[in-house]
């Protein structure tokens, strides 16, 4: 029971005690002024609260009204009886609150209906992704009804994760409220399962390999790169698919003592989902699992691995190793060799003023900084630049234009096209075929500051939104290459956010179109993003595993340097 409610009931009971005494006193003094005190009890009952009224506090409210009736009576005994009856009624509040599972119940079901209704009304990719809202409602409504009945915050987190996953949109995600972070994180951690001392990744050749392997598995001959042929008798990707959160990305994980919200997001692009498809299997099993792997002699062996902890910790570590970019701040530079420097872009945001501006010129200060750094490096012999976009969670497209314009060949370049807002219908305008009407094209002028130098952009499946746009623009430039183990995320429509008491939902809410009027970048029902076709996929093989997990190197960065040398 909330402390403030305990205090409210106690204070009101004490007030009833005061009324008992006042009944006698008022009779002696014979002044109506004392009557006013009988009105105070309901006021106290309503005001001493932090989260507002609650049905479980009904005995408190009824008790206060009973006590207040003393206001209308003159007889001392009646007043005292009413005060006592009110106090007894108020006392019932304690057992009612303690025994009632719906005491201060959170409105998961109501919030689901609000969020779902809002998204249904404003999601801009319904046609593009062929979303069947009625089917989704029919599927999830009973689940949220049950969550409401059970007041199950953990199930709420997982169910929202699954619902968001249905959209295969990197911009559709649910964040629980602060009060539910612990349950949310525990639910996801539990869903990830047990740690058996390794993670499993799918290699480019289709095989599965052990990565981030615990030293204790050396006795079984399992090391980083060991080929895993089966997990509890099944193929690793098949086992992964049995996970309740399969198809969800946990790539924004920064898991630490329940301070960070673990968030489930779906992979918009099927290729990215396949790349990570082995990861979840390594947490699935009981106290022990039978793992078949190839030994050093090339023969298959089966070992029994026992649980040594929770998989969430190892998975977080694995993702950190896979995704870590150059370890410097946003828009910071690092000279990698005599001829190569690296610009790290963690988010497409420079400062608040420029972020809230629609003018590319708002980024002139940022461009001046970048320009002066490049000129300084050029004076030291630097010719080529690596731009690290890994784990870039997006931001302003105008900042993208500001940066890309500096490296782009001279001349006009296309960025993207606005939709057209229909003021009358209060929605994005569509033509007779149901396609969004094209608005103004956004372009920028290239500067070619490197003057013939080359640019390599490194991306991963977490390079999303404005980073997706930047990838698309860089792909089309002759002097640039984009590399990664996967393509970028594949989501570029701008987002809207709806907040309710139990969490908040963000989803694609603003239309961003390509030159031909089609939806820009975001994958459709086929789950193939139009972005990333120009990305040079770096094979995830034994060399990559050794470099990343044994030697602790930034394998993709090394590859980029190698390409430039």
């Amino acid at each position, binding site marked *: 029971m909330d402390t403030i409610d305990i205090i409210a009931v106690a204070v009101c009971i004490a007030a009833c005690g005061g009324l008992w005494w006042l009944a006698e006193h008022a009779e002696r003094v014979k002044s*109506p002024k004392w*009557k006013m005190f009988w009105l105070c009890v309901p006021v106290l009952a309503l005001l001493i609260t932090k989260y*507002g009224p609650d049905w479980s506090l009904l005995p408190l409210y009824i008790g206060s009204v009973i006590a207040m009736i003393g206001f209308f009576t003159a007889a001392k005994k009646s007043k005292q009886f009413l005060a006592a009856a009110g106090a007894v009624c108020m006392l019932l509040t304690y057992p009612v609150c303690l025994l009632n599972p719906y005491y201060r119940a959170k409105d998961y079901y109501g919030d689901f209906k609000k969020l779902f209704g809002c998204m249904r009304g*404003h999601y801009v990719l319904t046609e593009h992704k062929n979303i069947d809202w009625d089917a989704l409602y029919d599927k999830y409504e009973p689940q949220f009804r049950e969550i409401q009945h059970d007041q199950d915050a953990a199930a709420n987190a997982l169910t929202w994760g699954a619902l968001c996953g249905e959209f295969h949109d990197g911009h559709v995600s649910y964040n629980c409220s602060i009060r539910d972070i612990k349950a949310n994180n525990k639910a996801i951690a539990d869903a990830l399962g047990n740690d058996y001392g390794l993670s499993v990744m799918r290699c480019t050749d289709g095989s599965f390999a052990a990565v981030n392997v615990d030293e204790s598995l050396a006795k079984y001959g399992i090391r980083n790169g060991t080929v895993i042929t089966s997990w509890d008798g099944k193929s690793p990707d098949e086992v992964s698919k049995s996970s309740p959160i399969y198809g969800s990305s946990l790539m924004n994980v920064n898991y630490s003592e329940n301070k960070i919200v673990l968030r489930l997001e779906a992979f918009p692009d099927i290729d990215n989902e396949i790349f990570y498809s082995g990861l979840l299997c390594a947490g699935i099993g009981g106290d022990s699992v039978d793992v078949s792997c190839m030994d050093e002699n090339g023969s298959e062996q089966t070992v029994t691995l026992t649980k040594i902890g929770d998989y969430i910790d190892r998975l977080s570590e694995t993702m950190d190793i896979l995704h870590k970019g150059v370890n410097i701040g946003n828009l910071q530079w690092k000279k990698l060799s005599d001829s190569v420097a690296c610009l790290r872009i963690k988010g497409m945001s420079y400062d608040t003023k420029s972020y809230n501006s629609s003018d590319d010129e708002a980024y002139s200060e940022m461009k001046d900084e970048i320009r002066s750094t490049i000129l300084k490096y050029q004076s030291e012999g630097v010719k080529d630049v690596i731009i690290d976009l890994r784990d870039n969670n997006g931001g302003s497209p105008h900042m993208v234009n500001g940066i890309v314009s500096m490296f782009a060949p001279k001349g006009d370049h296309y960025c993207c096209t606005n939709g057209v807002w229909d003021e009358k219908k*209060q929605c994005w305008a569509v033509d007779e075929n149901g396609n969004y009407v094209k608005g103004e094209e956004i372009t920028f002028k290239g500067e070619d500051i490197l003057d013939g130098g080359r640019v390599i952009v490194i991306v991963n499946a977490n390079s999303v939104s404005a980073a997706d746009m930047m990838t698309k623009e860089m792909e089309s430039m002759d002097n640039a290459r984009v590399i990664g183990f996967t393509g970028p995320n594949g989501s570029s429509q701008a987002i809207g956010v709806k907040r309710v008491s139990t969490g908040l939902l963000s989803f694609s809410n603003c239309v961003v179109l390509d030159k031909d009027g089609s939806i820009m970048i975001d994958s459709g029902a086929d789950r193939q993003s139009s972005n990333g076709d120009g990305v040079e996929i770096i094979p995830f093989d034994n060399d990559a595993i050794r470099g990343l997990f044994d030697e602790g190197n930034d394998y993709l960065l090394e590859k980029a340097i190698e390409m430039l040398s």
Partner: protein
Amino acid sequence: MLDIMRSQFRTMTRKTMVHILGVLLLAASTIMLFMNNAVSDDTGSVPTATEIIPETATLIMSLAMFGTTFVASIIAGDDFLDKTINNELIAGRRRYTSYFGRAIPVMIAGPLISIALCTLPYVIYGAVNGFGDTLPVGNLILRVAVGIFPLIRLSAFCVMVLFLFRNPIGAVMSNMAMPMMGMAVVVGGSSFPFLKAASEKLWLVSPINFVSLGKIESWYTYDLELETYYTYSTAIPASDIVLTIISSVVMTAVYLIIGYHYFHVDDLE
């Protein structure tokens, strides 16, 4: 009783203090609308009256609530200061005529003044900058019409407080709590979790129900030039209208009964 009511209405129309407060509140609300426009609009185009309603209505409505509290506290309260009520009772008037002769005019004039205070600023603003057609006028009128009931309840509350305190200054101070609560929710709801929770969970019976009626559900989207586009939902569900009316009528009765009961036994010193 009718002559007491007539005298109350006469005082309302002739008392300078009422005129000054009315004009001040109207001026404050109107200036606020024009200033809000100056601060919030950086696109160069001046928003019309219906465009600024969603953003400003709750604040203007909480200001308008002061109209009711002032009318109740100052007009009827004056009769406690100059002992008019005492003289009426000495002259043989029944207590219920003195009580309801004041309560009824307050419950008529208070809501009318508050409604005027929350609509006139938009009329003035619209006359200068245009009314536009962002929101359907019918729904807005319905909201204002439904708002009369919570205002009647507020008037009854003010009358109750006035007859408990028997002092216009004390009553003004106490009654101001209501519009102040409304403003607190509008301006800094998250800083007052109780008020926020109460206004959301109990908005139908909350004293600031009137302000809640000014809250128009909105959603916005934007394009790549950061031009913002709003969609509004101005309709009120029929169930909310019915519950607002029922809760207002019930609570009005409760407040009037409490006030009259106290006045009935009061010795008036």
